[in-house]
């Protein structure tokens, strides 16, 4: 069957098997290997991407289900050569070690910050509780999300200050 999917803002049309999983479509058909496969049973979240506006585990979504939809992967977080604050945060706070779970963790965290700009550590832990990291013990992932929240808040304050400076 032929599907058309917008991935990170670029449209792709491909003929695929109906059974093809979205994670394999992204990795094997499009060569976007930043999203990882980790468990088959939607427990680990290494494969999390956004389908339209929602994080999904792409090992349990068929590529066909993404037909006509938008997908955001880790490769789409960086804009115009500038890392998303959540990417900066994970590097700054040592929120990753082997890096295998990191793309999924960052995409869920990005969604959390978009919907809850000032999450508490408990809210962060709850939001990430469907994903597994085997290296960090989660502590520095929580700190990373807090770091991004605080830097985004500071950036918003700067923007507000700037807009107030604009003469009428």
């Amino acid at each position, binding site marked *: 069957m032929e599907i058309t999917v917008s991935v990170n803002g670029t449209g792709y049309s491909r003929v695929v*098997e109906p*059974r*093809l999983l979205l994670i*394999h479509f992204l*990795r*094997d058909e499009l*060569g*976007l*290997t*930043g*999203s*990882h*496969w*980790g*468990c*088959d*049973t939607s*427990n*680990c979240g*290494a494969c999390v991407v956004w389908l339209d506006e929602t994080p999904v585990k792409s090992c349990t979504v068929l590529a066909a289900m993404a037909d006509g939809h938008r997908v955001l*992967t*880790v*490769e789409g*977080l*960086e804009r115009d050569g500038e*890392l998303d604050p959540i*990417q*900066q945060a*994970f*590097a*700054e706070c*040592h929120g*990753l*070690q*082997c*890096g*295998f*779970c*990191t*793309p999924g963790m*960052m995409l869920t965290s990005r969604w959390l910050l978009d919907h809850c700009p000032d999450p508490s*550590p408990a809210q*962060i*832990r*709850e939001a*990430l*509780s*469907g*994903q*597994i*990291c*085997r*290296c*960090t*013990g*989660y*502590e*520095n*992932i*929580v700190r990373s999300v807090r770091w991004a929240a605080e830097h985004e808040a500071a950036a918003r304050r700067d923007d507000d200050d700037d807009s107030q400076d604009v003469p009428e």
Partner: protein
Amino acid sequence: MCPSDSQLSAAASRRRAEPARVTATAPEPPGGAYGPVRRKEDARFVRGKGTFIDDIQLPGMLHGAVLRSPLAHARIVSIDTAAASAHPMVEAVITGDTLAGRGLAWMPTLSQDVQAVLATDKVRFQGQEVAFVVAQDRYSARDALELINVDYEPLPVVVDATRALDPQAPVIRDDLPGRTDNHIFDWEAGDAAATDAVFASADVVVTGDMLYPRSHPAPLETCGAVARMDKTTGKLTVWSTTQAPHAHRTLYALVAGLPEHKIRIISPDIGGGFGNKVPIYPGYICAIVGSMVTGRPVKWVEDRSENLMSTSFARDYHMHGEIAATRDGRILGLRARVLADHGAFNGAAQPTKFPAGFFHIFTGSYDLRAAHCEVTGVYTNKAPGGVAYSCSFRITEAVYLVERMVDLLAAELDLDPAELRMKNLLRPEQFPYTCPTGWEYDSGDYPRALRLAMEIAGYPELRREQAGKRERGEYMGIGVSFFTEGVGAGPRKHMDILGLGMADGADLRVHPTGKAVLGISCQTQGQGHETTFAQIVAAELGLSPDDIEVVHGDTDRTPFGLGTYGSRSTAVSGAAAAIAARKVRDRARIVASAMLEVSPSDLEWLNGRWQVRGDPEQARTIGEIAMAAHSGLELPEGVEGHIDASTVYNPPNLTYPFGAYICVTDVDAGTGEVRIRRFIAVDDCGVRINPMIVEGQVHGGLADGVGMALMQVIAFDAEGNCLGGSFMDYLLPTSVECPSWELGETVTPSPHHPIGAKGIGESATVGSPAAVVNSVLDALRPFGVRHADMPLTPANVWSAIQGRPLRTDLAIT
């Protein structure tokens, strides 16, 4: 120097207010390059630009898949591959018979046993490799597995290690000549007679039986390989998830008869190892044979169930402990008898002379008079492995045993477990200390670490809170553990793996502009070697870590060494890197002397430069010297040019990191649910090169400890069906099961390591399970519960409260 009590209290109160780091002594940062440098690796990982095994795509690459046994023990009557071979997308179907024709149906294990690559006679555990399909894509390869018809004749199964030596037990390894039972080895350490004498004279002897159940490292990336046999050049290149690329190369050469210089092993980015990626797995061999047969590159990546059911498990130690003491709590002696379940093939990865790994470093951190341990290894119809999962070659099991025994003794004597430990810890003046089984601990200040952990925890306050809660029928536990690890294997006269001495190389090339490339033999799986090792060299040469590229994980580009496991990277390769840098510095001194027209003896190394004594104006940096060494400068006699250097580091001893952990739990007696409220970890790993990375390693290990203590077990039913074959059944801790870790540190440098470092990779995994279990059992004391085995799931805790703790590793009615 020890901090004063008021300093400790101040640190402790800060700690409770805001999770941070508490330091008892600050290390001296040599050269200014040590410190929480942000990782070089992260630039690629946060962009999704890492290269993990399944990210590798080669032109014309085929995909392999393994057919596995559904039965735990069965004779293979026949294998019919005709339908699979006829599948239009299939390029090859390989069976044990195909491999036998090449002499590859069996391969040696790291414990001098053999393991079937693809079964020829019998299958011996559920999930064992039976056939291998090579197809044009990964889905077709899996489709074709369904078309292979294997006729099995089921055999009786042994999954309970305690029954493996029964006379009527079926013999699993009838492939081994003369084998009539499931016995693998008997092994002992310590002085049995002296221990008997100590026990005979003791006021108190406490015994305990405990299981350290079968667990699995479960790195988030499973194991896999991409093999490319270039028939024109005769060169075999294997990208594989290996923690030990050089050792794998040599073993492939020995097993397959390939010339070693025609084998290149590349370990790309590794999505976590934890010991799971030390052995050679049948899938790797199959991918290699697949490439030989088809003439095209072949990729094989296992799925999660394959990873959990067939690759190297951990633990599975049935332990009986006895501890002898005086009535006032002076520990005198320790005994242990262990039944070790090694699965169907003895594939434990450890120094070959030590069949129970370093389990016999089992007297822990205590000053006792005598000790003796015996370990018996047996075969069962379970997956092979045993030494994996950040276990410091089984010191994890040893620490769990002694720390549980000390708690049982405390309960017997009605003493506080922290006080009992404090009373018996080795004292700083006893180091270097030779333990009753003959190992020389290099350095330590144990009481200081325990005091700091108790201060951070607010220990007396916690005990008061607990007493109040007990009166109200609330069950709060405070668990203490103290551990000593021996890491950095190891001195080559004592330690080898299949004859390969456990020394590691480093080579350091300094380019004319003063930028350097360090080649190391170990391999990062997330530990941040590209950063830490650059810091080691930078500190020695007065460079910035940014000026040093660390090359690892490619046997054609790095010096030989045994790889990364057993917390040996910093302890062995880190030492090699420092020594290579010091050799560079020595060569640079001679060149600098020519540049400055003075004698080398007139130069001193100061502030990252060779300087004429007393004259800071007359100095040269490594960068300036490197350019001169490559220039037309007339070099002194004996200097060949360039300042590159290489070395091989043969450690004189293990290093002995240690730590004190305290876990606070709340237990719901109605449901059996355990909540970890706080976890305090004070670690001493000697000098910390990058404290940010060290703390990250501790965090991860603590989560492992929580997982093993409360959730993780690979159990089996009576037919040998694996009950932990997916993440639906094998439960790993997530962000909500883990508390916010509270860390502290003391620094006792290793006296024999060139930079005083000891290694940290496994400390928390070794030390933390006992703290969690001690905490839960402390909570359950009012119910008279003496012991319950890991994992302390709600069902197990509830059953223990009812007086019926579960056998956690078996589902046999």
